[in-house]
């Protein structure tokens, strides 16, 4: 018994080593660079600079705006699709779901390049609509990440709850608003976090669709190519802080729902 216990524990060792080497150590390096200057002295001026410069602060806001609009667009597209998928009685439902996932199997840069040509066809000159293109590109890229979690929650929804609501006199609309929608919040939250955070940093989409304005990801890149490790690490740390704050905030929401629904997803 004792031997078995030992060997089970030791199964975790490879991952622990991985964790230390590729997560913990790099994070320490990141912290070191973010809080030092060129001479290796401790400083918080990197951060002070970021939050007082209207340009870097503007980049933060621009990234948030791109991410926010992208998330909203994804949500508005994904919810009806997921709802339809979950409630439909089609025999070949799995095929439909596959159709939604399939774009993810195609190389990302290929998809964006194709999208570029398509947008050129519709818009004429891409460069005239940089913000819209960024949102379209990101939504195109991240949509499956929004559909799947919402679909998962909705398909596990107990139909009898909705039937009960209707028995008690609720019409379709109020049954949806008072039962289905609140119960699908965990799916929405997990979809939102999977879209919002990458949308703040994925500057490759912006680059490829000719949006010349930097977002947080491109700012890191530009600091690095100017040999400024400190500035780049500082931005990375700010992003990390945003991610942690976001996760804490949405975890609270999920927990509340777990108590009532008793099941999260993904």
């Amino acid at each position, binding site marked *: 018994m004792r031997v078995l216990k030992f060997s089970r524990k030791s199964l975790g060792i490879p991952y622990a080593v991985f964790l230390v080497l590729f997560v913990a150590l790099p994070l320490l390096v990141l912290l070191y660079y973010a809080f030092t200057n060129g001479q290796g002295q401790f400083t918080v001026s990197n951060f002070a600079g970021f939050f007082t410069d209207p340009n870097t602060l503007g980049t933060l*806001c621009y990234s948030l705006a791109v991410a926010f609009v992208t998330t909203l667009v994804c949500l508005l597209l994904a919810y009806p699709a997921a709802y339809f998928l979950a409630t439909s009685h089609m025999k070949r439902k799995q095929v439909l779901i596959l159709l939604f996932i399939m774009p993810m199997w195609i190389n990302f*840069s290929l998809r964006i390049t194709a999208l570029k040509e398509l947008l050129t066809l519709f818009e004429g000159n*891409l460069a005239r609509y940089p913000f819209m293109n960024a949102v379209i590109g990101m939504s195109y890229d991240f949509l499956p990440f929004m559909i799947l979690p919402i679909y998962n929650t909705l398909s596990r929804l107990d139909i009898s709850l909705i039937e009960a609501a209707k028995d008690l006199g609720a019409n379709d609309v109020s049954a949806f608003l008072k039962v289905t929608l609140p119960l699908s919040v965990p799916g929405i939250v997990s979809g939102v976090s999977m879209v919002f955070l990458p949308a703040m940093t994925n500057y490759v989409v912006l680059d490829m669709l*000719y949006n*010349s304005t930097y977002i947080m990801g491109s700012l890191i890149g530009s600091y690095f190519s100017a040999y*400024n490790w400190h500035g780049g690490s500082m931005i990375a740390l700010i992003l990390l802080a945003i991610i942690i704050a976001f996760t804490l905030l949405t975890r609270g929401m999920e927990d509340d729902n777990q108590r009532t629904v008793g099941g999260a997803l993904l």
Partner: protein
Amino acid sequence: MRTFFKEHQRSGRPGMSRQAGTAALAAALVLSGLAGVTYAGTEQTEEPSTSAPSGKKVVLRVCNWEEYIDLGEWGEDEVIDLESGDIFGENSMVQDFEDWYYETYGIEVNVEYSTFGTNEDLYNMLTLGDVYDLVCPSEYMFMKLMAEKQLVPLSDAFKDSSDPYNYYTNGVSPYIRKVFENHEINGEKWSDYAAGYMWGVTGIVYNPEALTHEEASTWKVLGDPKYDRQVTIKDNVRDSYFAAVGALKSDMLLSEEFRSQADYPVRLEEEMNDVSPETIQEVQDYLQDVKDNVYSFETDSGKADMITGKVLANYQWSGDAVYTMDQAEEDDYYLNFAIPEESTNIYFDGWVMLRSGVEGNADKQHAAEAFINFCSRPDNAVRNMYYIGYTSVIAGGDDSRIFEYADWTYGAEEDEEEVVDYPLGYFFSEDPENEDYTLTVPAEQLIRQLGAQYPSEEAISRSSIMVFFDGEKNDTINQMWINVRCFNILDVPVWIWVITVLALAALLYVYLSARHRQKLYLGSSK
């Protein structure tokens, strides 16, 4: 970066070098602590074997631009049939060098060849602990490396013109030789440390149906509202800075008064390298306008966008301009190349040896210098030029094959109607008037590939080298670039702020009231 060439067509590599590079760098940064340890380890095991005197095998670590050397495997129809004999790339240049070195010096050499995407990437790789023996950065970067004392000087043996294997010393263009001898940093000449490889100028590739040559021959074209969202600019601070300075000072640079001064070349270079705080501020304002006028800030995509007709003009390095025009011609679409009248940024990519790799190892240094010489052998220079489209610094000396290649590529056919003489004496000989080096070419070539690959002496006379900016100046310029590319929060109109605040307040209200209701519900159910 500058090197997206014929190879691109062959291998079909997707144009994402910058992103990939940055990602790799990010990964490298976080592991830099570990990298140091690893490298120290490999160094120790490798050194004894390379410096052993007998039965030795030399390992030469070369780092060059991506797609900047002949990789061989040419098609059978690609033979370059010059009068002095055929030139054909069967094997890669690197492999040919290994064979040649063994045959010539009886020493086995193993070349570890790797590539970099931008000068800054190379510098970062070196900072993070990568060790190379021979690298090929642009002039401003090898100047920076010289200033930082990171380089080993070229040996006297390398400069000895009596050695027939010194193809570089015997074949380099007199013009390039002068440039490398007349430019210095901290009192040391370029030529002490660097041997040229490729060179070129910057200019504008344009669609002649939309712009006249005159309209394209100015940096102001990039900010001209007439070409709203139909021109592209380079996505790096140095090239953009140069263009902006050219546009801002256009009137002064073009004035007769300025041009006729005795020390015009020196004054021009000073003006184009002006990094006074006022100029940096002006450049920032100008580039912010340009940002709203251009189609894109690009590194690779501009060529494709030009060929497919999405844009009317784009800022190009001459080698890439040649490629763009070649590609367009395959679709019977003809593009031209203009070198802006104000000034053009002339650049030189050169081989330099790093102290971290070569110092104290005579065998390595010998192999490194032999590698430079092998790439400078006229037939090999032709192979590289053909393969990558840039212009070699080699003129050939007594060997006529480089000039024959220029004639083979651009010379007019017998039945050509409009032909002109194109003197290249300034490049191929000491004497610009030397008529032995005058090509007879179709007139249109003056503003097409030939004009880009071998710029006229007149264009060279108004070229400037852009020096490297160190310390504080470099920081200011980089900050300027970030300011240009970032979204300024002060530009946000008031109504957007109002809407944002209202939306946030509404969200907060919904969130809080939902929680409140939930608590009531949970409370009552308990």
